[in-house]
């Protein structure tokens, strides 16, 4: 693996440490830090659903908006007031998880190559989320809304965009007309629709996108917002009064931090920061890559059009096209080089990757040119055929997870793959039939796979619930799975010891029982 630049390297290590800490509490599958994107979707839907109710009761006139919302909090606190608070807190939560998602993906280098599209379509969503959030404060038209609308107008007036300064719309109460309020409503309702459209774009090139967190996590996150809303309901400031400067404000720093920052500096400073950050984020994917990895390649003579690679590819890089040789199959896989992550998950899915094939040179229907599956078979055969191979344990690991190299000794043969998802389950059986006493399969923790689905597919294949599955005849006691991120080498050692103890309980070679 190439080493990332120093800030990314240290940041990545820090994120992994925090994630491991959260794993110990939540478990990797329900760790919120591993589901920041899908939590963002959850909070978006909470905002949308609560917003529909709020819009139904909102008086959309400039003079009536404040009263309608304020009464909602005071007279209908058990429903409207609660939903209002949840609406606001979900917006705060959305901003937090969105920024967390951005920082995590940046630190893990998830903006280059095949991820460029998702990155570039994600960056503008930052603006949409903040614009939607800030616009929401105006609809309430209390002093906080007045302050935010005024500050936003003064910020926009920093550039010569409009013939007349927008801030003139807030010089007097008479200037704030119902027409202007209709614009507020459009901003707060129209932009979220554009945001939803942008989110759809954002996940277009991702298969089985994680658009909703696991149920337990979703329930817990939603309950957290409702409990917070019940304990600390959101209430309005006094009604907007354009003849007065709102002196002291309980400001929502998570969404509105930009206003005090502007008054502490200048509108030009905020414009500079905005343009600078956007330029940096949009430029990142175009920075030169340290190396270009060859993408997966299809061999028509060995592709039978089974569609497993099509189903398993995490980035929708595989499409099915008519097979050039209709006598072999009706369809065959085709790889889109721009989308391919070179993860090898398709190789692990391919039925022709089985090492049991009686061909001199194993050629898979789909394979990685720089790390062909035939090489893995050769290396496995060599390791198990060596003089000290008696009762060896075979370890299949992942380049991105905990390093399996530290486990290598005379009794352990290790193979590190681009992604554990590249491992056809038949290799596990092959190793056991060729004399291995046990097989340890290692990969990133649930939700932490560098290629999103490698860990999930590998686990499902080995458990026999996804094709290609590990045959039922293979003794499960000789197999150990461990999901450990980079740096979590202790988990690997523990798993190896566990496997060794279990193998030691057997007397003699492990029989491979054929299914009835």
């Amino acid at each position, binding site marked *: 693996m190439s080493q990332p630049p120093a800030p990314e390297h240290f940041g990545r290590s820090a994120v992994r440490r925090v994630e491991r800490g*959260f794993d110990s509490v939540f478990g990797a599958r329900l760790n919120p830090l591993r589901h920041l994107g899908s939590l963002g979707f959850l909070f978006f839907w909470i905002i949308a659903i609560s917003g529909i109710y709020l819009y139904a009761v909102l008086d959309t006139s400039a003079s009536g908006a404040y009263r309608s919302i304020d009464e909602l909090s005071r007279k209908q606190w058990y429903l409207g007031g609660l939903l209002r608070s949840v609406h606001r807190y979900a917006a705060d939560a959305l901003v937090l998880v969105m920024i967390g998602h951005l920082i995590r993906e940046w630190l893990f280098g998830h903006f280059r190559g095949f991820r460029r599209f998702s990155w570039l379509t994600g960056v503008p969503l930052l603006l949409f989320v903040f614009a939607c959030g800030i616009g929401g404060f105006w609809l309430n038209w209390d002093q906080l809304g007045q302050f935010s609308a005024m500050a936003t107008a003064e910020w926009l007036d920093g550039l010569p965009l409009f013939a007349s300064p927008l801030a003139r719309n807030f010089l007097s109460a008479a200037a704030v007309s119902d027409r202007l309020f209709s614009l507020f409503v459009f901003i707060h309702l129209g932009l979220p629709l554009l945001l939803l459209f942008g989110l759809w774009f954002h996940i277009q090139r991702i298969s089985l996108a994680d658009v909703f967190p696991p149920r337990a996590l979703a329930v817990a996150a939603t309950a957290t917002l409702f409990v917070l809303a019940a304990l600390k309901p959101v209430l309005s400031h006094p009604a907007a009064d354009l003849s*007065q*400067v709102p002196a*002291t404000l309980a400001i929502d720093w*998570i969404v509105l931090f930009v206003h005090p920052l502007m008054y502490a500096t200048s509108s030009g400073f905020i414009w500079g920061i905005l343009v600078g950050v956007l330029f940096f984020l949009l430029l990142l994917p175009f920075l030169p890559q340290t190396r270009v990895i060859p993408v997966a390649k299809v061999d028509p003579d060995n592709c039978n059009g089974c569609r497993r690679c099509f189903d398993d590819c995490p980035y929708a890089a595989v499409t099915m096209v008519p097979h050039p040789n209709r006598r072999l199959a009706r369809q065959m896989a085709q790889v889109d080089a721009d989308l391919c992550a070179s993860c090898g998950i398709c190789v692990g899915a391919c039925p022709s990757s089985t090492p049991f094939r009686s061909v001199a040179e194993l050629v898979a229907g789909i394979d990685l040119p720089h790390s062909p599956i035939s090489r893995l078979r050769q290396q496995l055969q060599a390791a198990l055929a060596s003089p000290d191979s008696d009762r060896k344990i075979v370890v299949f690991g992942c380049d991105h997870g905990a390093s399996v190299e530290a486990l290598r000794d005379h009794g352990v043969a290790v193979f590190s793959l681009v992604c554990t998802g590249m491992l056809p389950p038949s290799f596990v059986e092959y190793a056991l039939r060729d004399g291995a006493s046990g097989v340890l399969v290692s990969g990133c923790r649930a939700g932490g796979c560098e290629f999103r689905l490698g860990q999930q597919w590998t686990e499902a294949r080995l458990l026999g619930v996804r094709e290609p599955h590990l045959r039922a005849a293979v003794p499960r006691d000789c197999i150990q799975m461990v999901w450990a991120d980079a740096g979590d080498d202790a988990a690997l050692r523990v798993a190896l010891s566990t496997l060794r103890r279990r193998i030691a309980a057997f007397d003699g070679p492990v029989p491979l029982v054929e299914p009835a």
Partner: protein
Amino acid sequence: MAMKKSMSPMTLLGQVLLYALFAAVIGVFSRWPSYQALAPDQAMIKLSFSHHGKPVSECRQASAAELAKLPPNMRAPVRCPRERSPVTVELDVDGVATYRHVAMPSGLSRDGASTVYHRLQVPAGSHRIAVRLNDDARMPGFSHVRAATVVLKPAQILVIDFDAAKGEITLQ
């Protein structure tokens, strides 16, 4: 091969604490610390107008030769320039020149309104305000002048505008 662990009380407690921490971060920073938009003893003056200056030069009678070159429907006998005068504004507070700005007409042909928006913090209390505005490049000095003593309460906003209909500077 795979084991499902049941949740221990400590794990459950840890989860509750971390969710509570998340809620606390949102609950606290969605309202704290409070922001002081204006110091308690301060008031604000906003000088703002959107005003079309007078044409930069006089209208003139077109000559017969000029009119003859034009299509019949465009032969207006009086030719007026599109360009407007820049609007100059000066503000004195308590006898001190506080702000001076020359607002250029908007538009590619400089035939739009000149706009100004300027905010100024002043201590609450009594102030002598003098505003001078010139919207005609052909005239020296200022075509509109307004002076007044105002008493501003803390946090009060005084808006200085120009009422084009009345042709005067307003203080509100």
